């Protein structure tokens, strides 16, 4: 069976790697990675905006974003993908490429999830930091940018990486709307061979596992490092009982 798998890879590695490119759209593993990277790169700033909106004192900002986050978190991703696939062209009349549909859906979905993490990170810092910033004359956004977010985001790095991992897994759902990704390519290979589905999909599983496992390892290492810094802080001087933010050295 190993031989079968090696044969499949040596015959079809280009398709699995880049899909039909350059004769068709870019696909395969390359497209999976591009889709994942773009999703997380966009979901990250979106999550900060969502979190700030949810913490805003303006209802006009807080309520719609809260509703959006709740709905997004309460609905299976597949539903969201199908909705955007069928509804967006209906509403806009434009023919949206499935890659863009998938990207947008992933950004909103992961942005909503990550925004809860960001919000938690901000709230966990306590009032003291914002009050100190205000007392020095910082504006709300200035305090967020220079004082609150650097601390909250640093503490969130492991969560951000695990969101990245789940984003990679989520890209496989692009299959249902024909996004030419790695899963799509593997299915094409399977349709050509017809007789070796187990081997083909085992290759697929191994590739996803390898990518996600490496990222999880990175997350674990960073998490351990942050935990060590926190421990370093509690060994430090006596601090008041109020919830205290995490102390860190320059990353």
């Amino acid at each position, binding site marked *: 069976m190993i031989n079968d798998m090696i044969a499949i890879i040596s015959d079809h590695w280009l398709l699995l790697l880049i899909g039909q490119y350059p004769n068709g759209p870019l696909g395969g593993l390359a497209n999976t990675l591009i889709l994942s990277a773009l999703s997380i790169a966009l979901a990250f700033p979106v999550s900060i905006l969502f979190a700030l909106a949810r913490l805003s004192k303006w209802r006009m900002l807080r309520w719609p974003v809260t509703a959006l986050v709740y709905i997004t978190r309460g609905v299976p991703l597949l539903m969201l993908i199908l909705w955007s696939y069928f509804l967006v062209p209906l509403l806009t009349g434009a023919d949206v490429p499935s890659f863009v549909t998938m990207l947008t859906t992933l950004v909103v979905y992961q942005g909503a999830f990550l925004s809860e993490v960001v919000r938690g990170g901000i709230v966990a810092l306590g009032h*003291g*930091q914002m*009050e*100190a910033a*205000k*007392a*020095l*004359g*910082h*504006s*709300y956004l*200035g305090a967020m940018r*220079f*004082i609150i977010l*650097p*601390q909250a985001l*640093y503490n969130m790095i492991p969560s951000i990486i695990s969101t990245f991992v789940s984003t990679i897994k989520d890209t496989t759902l692009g299959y249902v709307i024909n996004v030419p990704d790695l899963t799509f390519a593997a299915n094409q290979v399977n349709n050509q061979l017809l007789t070796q589905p187990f081997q083909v999909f085992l290759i697929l599983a191994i590739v996803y596992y390898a990518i996600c496992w490496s990222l999880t390892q990175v997350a674990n290492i960073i998490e351990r490092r942050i935990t060590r810094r926190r421990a*370093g*802080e509690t060994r*430090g*001087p*006596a*601090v*008041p009982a*109020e919830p*205290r*933010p*995490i*102390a*860190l*050295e*320059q990353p």
Partner: protein
Amino acid sequence: MTQSATSPELLPAIRLSNVCKSYGDHPVLKNIDAQVARGEVVVICGPSGSGKSTLIRTINRLEEISSGSITFDGQNIHAPMPTKALNLLRSRIGFVFQNFNLFPHLSVVDNVSMSPVRVKGVAPDVAYDKALRLLDRVGLADKAKAYPAQLSGGQQQRVAIARALAMEPPVMLFDEPTSALDPEMVGEVLAVMKSLAAEGMTMLCVTHEMGFARDVADRIWFIDAGEIIETAPPETFFNNPRHPRAQRFLADLRH
């Protein structure tokens, strides 16, 4: 009006008129009328829960008030104003917290130099040099590169004072600056505050350190149940408190 009557030098630094504040229907500050002259050092004392923190926090508008007015340099701090104006006012009122509230992700010198750069637009190298001088002044020049978590409580509070001073505020407010400290560190912080007072800084300080009040304060405000019920120079307050509740407070302290 003549020039001299409105000249800022003759106005009190801070004037509270009829300040009231309630949480729900629970009044916390009742008709506070008081003023702080330029260069004056006022110590606010009173029993726990009497409203000392609330009072001092209304002065830089970390707390809103229900009615009345608080003027600083002739400007009503609680008037409706654009947030920019409020931030500018706050940047001119130094505030030192009980829990220091240093920025743990920044080194000591960055804690001190950051706000002048970000809020006032001071050039980074100028702010940095100034921060080093301020740290030297509070006795922490050798800790400039350390992070807050590596400092003792007393050192952290001295950094917090330097950080407030970096904005060059004409007034400094302190809310129990030594209450979170181990006893052996109280002295180093009080010494810094004492030197500030000696240089003519206008200061308003909530503290239970009666030795400091006696030595440094020009006036004591005694507050109980949200009311300032006695204001007097320290000798008078400590030797001849008029109000029975002030007498009881002082008697409790001696035990």
